[in-house]
C-alpha cells in the first residue's frame, strides 16, 4: 500500500478531496438552511405556545374571578335589600360564607356613622374557621377600615375593585394562604353610599391553575400584581424555581422601561439563567380587563430548540458519516485507479520490452541489403520475416564463409516470446556449429542434440540447413521436418528432400545429408508454414500451389533477383489474405546462384611431393606467377606466404608420416583475381575448421603453432575447402586488381 501522502499527491485524489470538501460545504449549507428554517418554525411555535398558555391561563383566572365577581354582585342585592337592618346584613354575610366554600370571609364596612347605635365604624364580618362560621364586628380603634385600601380605593373608584393578592399569615386555618379581596361600593335605594361590601377569597387554586399545564415541561408561570408584586410562582420543587427571582426582576425592569419609553407592550425577554447558564425566554402579558395582573410564562431554549439541536447533531453525524464514506470511496477508487495506471504502465513496459526483443530479433537477421552481397556477382539472397506478434518463432540466416553460402530457415512450434527464445538459442547454435563444420547433417545433429537436452517445454523446431559451395555450385543440405523448398530453374519444382524429424524430438536421430548441383541461374526458394497456411477471411489456406504459380513467372528469367521473387510471393500472400489478421509468422527466403564464367588469362600447375624441401620450388612457382601478372611486390609477398602456408599444412597433415604423396597446385587468374587450388589425395582434412588465433594474448599465453591457416585467412579474400572424389580441395583466392 502506498503511503497516504503519495496518494494525496495524485491528481485524482486531489480532485477527490476537492469533491469531498465541496460536498461537505453543500451539506453544511443545506443543514444551515434547514436549521434556520426549523429554527424559525420553532420560534413561531414557541411564540404561539407561550401566547396560548398566557391566554388560556388568563381566561381560567378570569373565569374564576368572574365567579367571585358574580357572587359578590348576587349578594350585594341582598345587602342592599337588608341595608335597613344591620343584623340582617350580618345574616346575609354569614349565609354567604356558609354557602360558598371559595369565600373565606365576607364583610360589610359601612360608611362611618351609618348606624348611630352601632358606633361610628361598623363592619360585620363573617368568616369560616375550622369548619365553623363566625360572625364578628371587626371595626375598632385598631381596625380603622376607612384607612384601608379595600375601602378607600373602592369608594374612590366607585366600582367593584380587586385588591392585589397577598399572603395572609395565619388568618385562616393557621396556615399561609394566598388571598385577595374583592370589594364593591354599596348604594342604598335612596342613592346614598352605604359602605363597601368585600369578600376574601383563597387564591390557592391559582397556583394549581398556573402550574397545571405548560407549553414545555420545564416551563413555569408567574403571576404578578399590576404593581409587579410576585403573587404566584412555582414551588421550590420546581426544577427552575431558582430562576424565579431573576425572572421577576427582569419583568419589573422591562415594565419600568416600558413605562418610561411609553412604547407598546413588551412581550418577550431573552435571558440567560444566573443559576445554570441556560438560555430562556420570558413571555408576559397583562390580563385583559380588571384586575390588571400580569401573567408570565418562562420557556427554556434547550426545550424549545432541543429537538432542533438533536436533529442538528443527528444531521451532522450522518453528514460526517456520509463524508467519511465518500472519502473512503474516493480513496479506494483512487487506489484502484492507481493500480490500473500501474498495470497499464506494466503493460507498456512489457510492450516496450517486446519491442526491444523484436528489434533484437531483427538484428539477428542478416542485413536486408539488396543485393545481399554487393561485392559478389555469383550469389544473391533475399529474406523476409514478418512475425505475427512482436516477436516470432521463425528464424533464418545466411552468410558466406570460405566461399560457401551457409543458410538456414526454421520454425519453432508455437508463437510469441517462448518461441522467440527457443529460436534465439537455435540460431546461436547454428552460428557456432557452422564455425567448425560445413556438413549440414553434422550441424543438424549438433542442433538436435542440444535442442533435445534442453527441451523441458517440449518445443520442437522444423529446420532446413543448406551449404552451397560457391565455386562448384554443389548444394549440400539437410532437412529436419521443414517445408520443402521450391527450386526455380527452367521450371518450378520441389527440392528432393527427406523429411527427417524436427529438432528436439529424438536425441540420437540420424539426420541424412542430401546433395545436388545447383545449376547456374537457378533459385532456391525457402519459406515457413506461414506461407502455405496463410488464411483468408473464410479460413481457406494459401497452399503451395499459389506461391509456386507466382514463382513460375520467374522461370528462365535472367534479369531477376531474389528480392523480386520474395516481394512477388509476399504480395500474393497479402492479396490472398485480404483483411484477415496474420495468423502465423511468415518467413520467405530466396537464394539465387549465378556464377560467372571466368575467362582465364592464366593457368598453371605445379606438382609437388609432401616434403618440406619442396617449399622453395613452390615459392619460385608462386613468384613466377605473380610476376607474370605484374603484381606489386607486397601483394606478391602475400600470395607467396599464403600459398606456402596452405601447402605446408597439406605436407604436414595430409599423408601419414613416412609415406609419399602428391600435391597439386593449380594457379588460375582472370586478370583481376588470382586463385590457387591445392589438391591432395590424403585423408579428409578441412583446414578451414581451424585457424582461429587470439591475437590479444601475451607472449606467455601464446601457443607456438596455429598461425599458418590463420595467415592464409588474413591474407586472402577467401578460403574454401571441399572434399570431392576422395580429394581434399583447398581454394584460396584474392583480387589483386580492382
Amino acid at each position, binding site marked *: 500500500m502506498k503511503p497516504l501522502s503519495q496518494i494525496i499527491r495524485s491528481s485524482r485524489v486531489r480532485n477527490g478531496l476537492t469533491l469531498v470538501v465541496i460536498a461537505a460545504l453543500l451539506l453544511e449549507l443545506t443543514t444551515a438552511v434547514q436549521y434556520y428554517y426549523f429554527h424559525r418554525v420553532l420560534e413561531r411555535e414557541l411564540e404561539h405556545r407561550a401566547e396560548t398558555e398566557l391566554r388560556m391561563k388568563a381566561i381560567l383566572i378570569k373565569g374564576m374571578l368572574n365567579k367571585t365577581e358574580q357572587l359578590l354582585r348576587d349578594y350585594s342585592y341582598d345587602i342592599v335589600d337588608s341595608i335597613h337592618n344591620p343584623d340582617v346584613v350580618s345574616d346575609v354575610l354569614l349565609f354567604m360564607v356558609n354557602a360558598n366554600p371559595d369565600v373565606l370571609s365576607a364583610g360589610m364596612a359601612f360608611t362611618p356613622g351609618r348606624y348611630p347605635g352601632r358606633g361610628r365604624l361598623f363592619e360585620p364580618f363573617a368568616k369560616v374557621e375550622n369548619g365553623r362560621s363566625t360572625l364578628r364586628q371587626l371595626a375598632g380603634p385598631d381596625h380603622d377600615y376607612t384607612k384601608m385600601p379595600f375601602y378607600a380605593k373602592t369608594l374612590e373608584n366607585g366600582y367593584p375593585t380587586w385588591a392585589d393578592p397577598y399572603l395572609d399569615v395565619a388568618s385562616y386555618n393557621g396556615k399561609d394562604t394566598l388571598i385577595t379581596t374583592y370589594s364593591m361600593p354599596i348604594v342604598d335605594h335612596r342613592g346614598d353610599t352605604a359602605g363597601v361590601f368585600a369578600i376574601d377569597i383563597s387564591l390557592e387554586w391559582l397556583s394549581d391553575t398556573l402550574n397545571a399545564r405548560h407549553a414545555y415541561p420545564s416551563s413555569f408561570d408567574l403571576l404578578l400584581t399590576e404593581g409587579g408584586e410576585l403573587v404566584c410562582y412555582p414551588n421550590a420543587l420546581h426544577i427552575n424555581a431558582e430562576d424565579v427571582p431573576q425572572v421577576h426582576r427582569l419583568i419589573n425592569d422591562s415594565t419600568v422601561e416600558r413605562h418610561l419609553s411609553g412604547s407598546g407592550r413588551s412581550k418577550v425577554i431573552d435571558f440567560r439563567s444566573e443559576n445554570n447558564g441556560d438560555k430562556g425566554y420570558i413571555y408576559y402579558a397583562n390580563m385583559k380587563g380588571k384586575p390588571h395582573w400580569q401573567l408570565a410564562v418562562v420557556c427554556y431554549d434547550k426545550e424549545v430548540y432541543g429537538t432542533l439541536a438533536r436533529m442538528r447533531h443527528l444531521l451532522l453525524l450522518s453528514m460526517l458519516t456520509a463524508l467519511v464514506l465518500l472519502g473512503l470511496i474516493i480513496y479506494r477508487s483512487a487506489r484502484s485507479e492507481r493500480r490500473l495506471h500501474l498495470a497499464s504502465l506494466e503493460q507498456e513496459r512489457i510492450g516496450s520490452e517486446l519491442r526491444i526483443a523484436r528489434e533484437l530479433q531483427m538484428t539477428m537477421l542478416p542485413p536486408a541489403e539488396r543485393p545481399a552481397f554487393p561485392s559478389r556477382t555469383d550469389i544473391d539472397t533475399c529474406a523476409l520475416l514478418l512475425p505475427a506478434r512482436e516477436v516470432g518463432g521463425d528464424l533464418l540466416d545466411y552468410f558466406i564463409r570460405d566461399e560457401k553460402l551457409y543458410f538456414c530457415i526454421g520454425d519453432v512450434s508455437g508463437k510469441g516470446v517462448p518461441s522467440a527464445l527457443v529460436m534465439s538459442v537455435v540460431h546461436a547454435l547454428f552460428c557456432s556449429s557452422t564455425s567448425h563444420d560445413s556438413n549440414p547433417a553434422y550441424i543438424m545433429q549438433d542442433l538436435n542434440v542440444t535442442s533435445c537436452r534442453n527441451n523441458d517445454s517440449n518445443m520442437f523446431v522444423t529446420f532446413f540447413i543448406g551449404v552451397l559451395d560457391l565455386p562448384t555450385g554443389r548444394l549440400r543440405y539437410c532437412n529436419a521436418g521443414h517445408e520443402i523448398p521450391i527450386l526455380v530453374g527452367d521450371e518450378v519444382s520441389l527440392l528432393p528432400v527427406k523429411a527427417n524429424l524436427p529438432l528436439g524430438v529424438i536425441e540420437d536421430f540420424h539426420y541424412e545429408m542430401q546433395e545436388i548441383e545447383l545449376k547456374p541461374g537457378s533459385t532456391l526458394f525457402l519459406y515457413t508454414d506461414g506461407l502455405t497456411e496463410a488464411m483468408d477471411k473464410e479460413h481457406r489456406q494459401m497452399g503451395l500451389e499459389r506461391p509456386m504459380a507466382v514463382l513460375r513467372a520467374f522461370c528462365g528469367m535472367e534479369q531477376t533477383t531474389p528480392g523480386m521473387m520474395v516481394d512477388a510471393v509476399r504480395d500474393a500472400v497479402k492479396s490472398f489474405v485480404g483483411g484477415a489478421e496474420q495468423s502465423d509468422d511468415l518467413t520467405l527466403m530466396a537464394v539465387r546462384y549465378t556464377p560467372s564464367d571466368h575467362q582465364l588469362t592464366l593457368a598453371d600447375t605445379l606438382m609437388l611431393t609432401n616434403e618440406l624441401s619442396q617449399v622453395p620450388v613452390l615459392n619460385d612457382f608462386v613468384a613466377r606467377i605473380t610476376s607474370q601478372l605484374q603484381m606489386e611486390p607486397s601483394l606478391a609477398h602475400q600470395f607467396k606466404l599464403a600459398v606456402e*602456408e596452405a601447402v605446408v599444412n597439406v605436407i604436414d597433415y595430409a599423408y601419414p608420416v613416412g609415406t609419399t604423396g602428391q600435391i597439386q597446385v593449380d594457379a588460375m587468374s582472370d586478370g583481376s583475381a588470382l586463385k590457387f587450388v591445392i589438391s591432395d589425395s590424403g585423408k579428409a582434412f578441412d583446414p578451414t575448421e581451424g585457424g582461429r588465433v587470439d591475437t590479444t594474448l601475451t607472449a606467455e599465453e*601464446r601457443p*607456438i603453432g596455429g598461425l599458418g591457416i590463420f595467415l592464409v585467412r588474413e591474407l586472402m579474400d577467401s578460403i574454401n575447402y571441399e572434399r570431392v572424389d576422395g580429394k581434399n580441395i583447398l581454394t584460396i583466392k584474392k583480387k589483386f586488381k580492382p
Partner: protein
Amino acid sequence: MKTSIEELDGKLVATLEGELDTAAAIEVEKELQPLFNSEGRDVVIECEKLEYIASSGLRILLGILKSAKAAGSKVILRNLNEDIRNVFKLTGLISLFEVE
C-alpha cells in the same frame, strides 16, 4: 638463408639474411639455439636483410621470446621491412616484441 650470432654490449645479436621459409626454418632453428638460452641477456634480431618469413619462422622467434621472457630479458626486432612488419601485425606478434 644465412644467420649469424654475435655478442655486442652484453646483448646477443642475431642477423638474419635471406628468405626464412618453412624449409629453411629447420636449419635456422638449430643455428639460433644459443638465443634460446640467452642467460638474461637481451636478444637483438637484426632483420635488415630478411626478405621473407613464414609461420615456421614466426614460431622460432616466438619460442626465443618465450624463453627470453622467462629469463627476464627482452627480444628486440630491428629493421623489419614493410611486408614482414605487416605479417607481425596480422598475427598480433608485433606487440609482444620490442621493435626498433
